[in-house]
């Protein structure tokens, strides 16, 4: 059971990492719109636009 003294702090470190990553994602606006992404999945287009000359 002694391994828990190592594994639990490790889990807490991972947890802190996950919280940090989520805070970063929220701060960069990825969670601002909670409505459109649900619809976006049905909207991906299969047709490709013609190559535009300036790209």
């Amino acid at each position, binding site marked *: *059971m002694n391994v*828990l*003294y190592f594994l*639990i*702090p490790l*889990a*807490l470190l991972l*947890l802190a990492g*996950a*919280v940090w990553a*989520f*805070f970063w994602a*929220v*701060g960069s*606006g990825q*969670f*601002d*719109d*909670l*409505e*459109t992404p649900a*619809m*976006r999945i*049905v*909207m991906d*287009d*299969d*047709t*490709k*636009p*013609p190559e*535009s000359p*300036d*790209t």
Partner: protein
Amino acid sequence: MSAGACFHCALPVDPRDQYYVDIDGEQQPVCCPGCKAVAELIRDTGMSNYYAMREAPEPGTGRPADDAAEWQIYDRDDMLAAFAESSDGTAEATIYVGGMYCAACSWLIETTMARVPGMLSADINPVTHRLRVSWHTAKLGLGGILAALANLGYDPQPLAPESAARPELLEQRAALKRLLVASLGMMQVMMFAVGLYAGDYQGMDPDMQYFLRWVSLAVTTPVVFYSARPFFRSAWRGVIARAPGMDLPVSIAITAAYVGSIYATLTNAPAVWFDSVVMFVFFLTLGRFLEMRARHRSIDRSTALSNVLPNTVTRCDEDGQTTIPGSQLVAGDVVLVRPGESIAADGILVDGDTAVDEALLTGEATPKPKSIGDPLLAGSINLDSIVQFRVETTGSDTTLGTISRMSERARYARPTYVQIADRIASTIVVAILIIAAAVGTFWYITAPDRAFVVTLSVLVVTCPCALALATPAAFAAAGTRLAQLRLLVTNGNAIEALSRSTRILFDKTGTVTRGAPVIEEIEVLDDKFDEEQCLRIAAALETVSTHPIANAFRATENDVAISDQSVAVGNGVTGVIDNQVWRLGRASFVGAASVGAALAATDVCLGVEGRLVARFKISDELREDATDTISQLTELGLKAGLISGDSEAVVQRTAGKLGIADYHANCSPEDKLEIIRTAQQNGETVIMVGDGINDAPVLAGADASIAPVHGAMLAQTSADIILVGHHLSPVATAVEVSRQTLKIVRQNLAWAIVYNATALPLAALGYVPPWAAAIGMSASSLIVVLNALRINRFGAP
């Protein structure tokens, strides 16, 4: 005669025009070169899927403006400073996109914008219709972005940074972070708690127990100090205001359990309650988050006023004309207004004669003739000719601004059941604290070692959590369900008012009717002509008119050779066919007075050389499901009524068709408000359905108000519920959903009370350990939430 509806904007197609676009190998008819250009643009950029995915458009949506605004002026540096924040060669701005109506629109806009050269990012919020763009200033200008949006057929409007700031966004971000910390913290602490409880039964190494307790403390601390902070703040505010809310016992329980657990950890006491703390905080945070989401569905009011005013105006200076943003106008400026443009400020006409459409302000559909010296109102639309006016007042001082403020006041004056609920909550909270104190004292005297644990259990078990969640959870679910039915709830109180409503009043124009004129009847008064000929001649004459009634004739083929056409402002149109002078318009203008025929005000007469030939009865077509909706509402036990500013005859006819017995004609906004007040004094709960800016105070005065979305923006913002799309039937469904919601609220409250009434004595007698109290509390909350979610399925097939 009509070749059907335009493929792009759904307006009727004029068969003579022959505009077609090739979409996926099929020739589709479009109504005008503008729609053709937009449809081709959409096709050529590989986005014809838009047409497959979008919902049926309201006719006219997405049709590009006939006279494209001068977007180039937005490329100027002073414009960039006014509307964008720029740094390091990039700039960011927020643009309100008018004319969006479904999710496919947001997809089209985002995808197209992302392909504009020089664009860095473009994100649109389909709920608030706001597009956030950032771009390289060297490669692209704000004008170019606006022009690209206008090319797609939308009506873009850049927002000044201060009106673009969104406090609700920051609130949502903070709430999400709190929720995540609470949920992750809860999962971790529960895991440790399982270990600790198992240890209590099976025996556990004291070092390991000590270690798990310290780890739990470490994880619980951020949950208490970060996630639960809003509860402490709100509790403190309640204490200062001498009106303790639900958050006070919540804060006391959290603090007591947390401090007590730390003490137990330090002294190696037999039990800790970190699991109860985190579970408690998580469920409360989740409840608050759901409630906040429902609250944010409201549509921002700041754009409403400016949205009906033009973005740019042409100012006449001594040395010529300059185009400036409408917001920079000051009193004394002389502004040039072309036909079709809206008037930017209140002022006095100084040059030219014209007719203006003041429907937005007065609800009056008939254009008003204006000559030099007459006042013009901001928000009205110039119809006939180029005029100049001198600005008197601008912005919020205008009539439009005043009406908008009036509706704001009416909004705040309304008593809400929320205030009553808060007062009841305060009483409950005080009662809980007294009970907890009494139980604590009793146990302290009889068994001091158990006093803390029992008091804590009482506080947790009696947590008015289920009580607090019962109402907001049901209302949030109802909001979601109504949104699926294309009704956006901006004020939660409306659902409650809707459920007990006894009377529903409809405005006429644009609410039960489509708001577009159609020819209802043609009466030919001259034997030499038939209906078909009269219609063609009338259509030919109307080609030069910008009057709304002219739209009724647009669907007709007009191949008649005509010359010398002119518009007589406020009277009608004239033209020469076969060397004879034809006139179309008011009876007196055509020369019908000599005939002496009895004519209604909405009739349009056709005459040749002063002789009456035909008369057209023009009416506003009813929405296709208006009659069904009224009968459904009647079945639900509501008394339906029609109130309108239109004349007696017109309103009576409409009411007759709808099967409404109770109608009021010639109503000013004050009269409408009076009708509502009278009904309310008789103990009735009144729903008002209407659009138009003049209805804003009326909508705010009713117990619940519903506005169709195509109405004036301001009416939307003062309405509690916004109806999207061109069907009226969701109104009837909304009443049913609201009744179901209140039924569920009552079930929830009953459950919460029964639970608390059972759990409280058990906890007070010491039969409930804190962990069981926390589970009981969570389970009761969960039952309440799950019950509320049943509303989501209400009425679904």
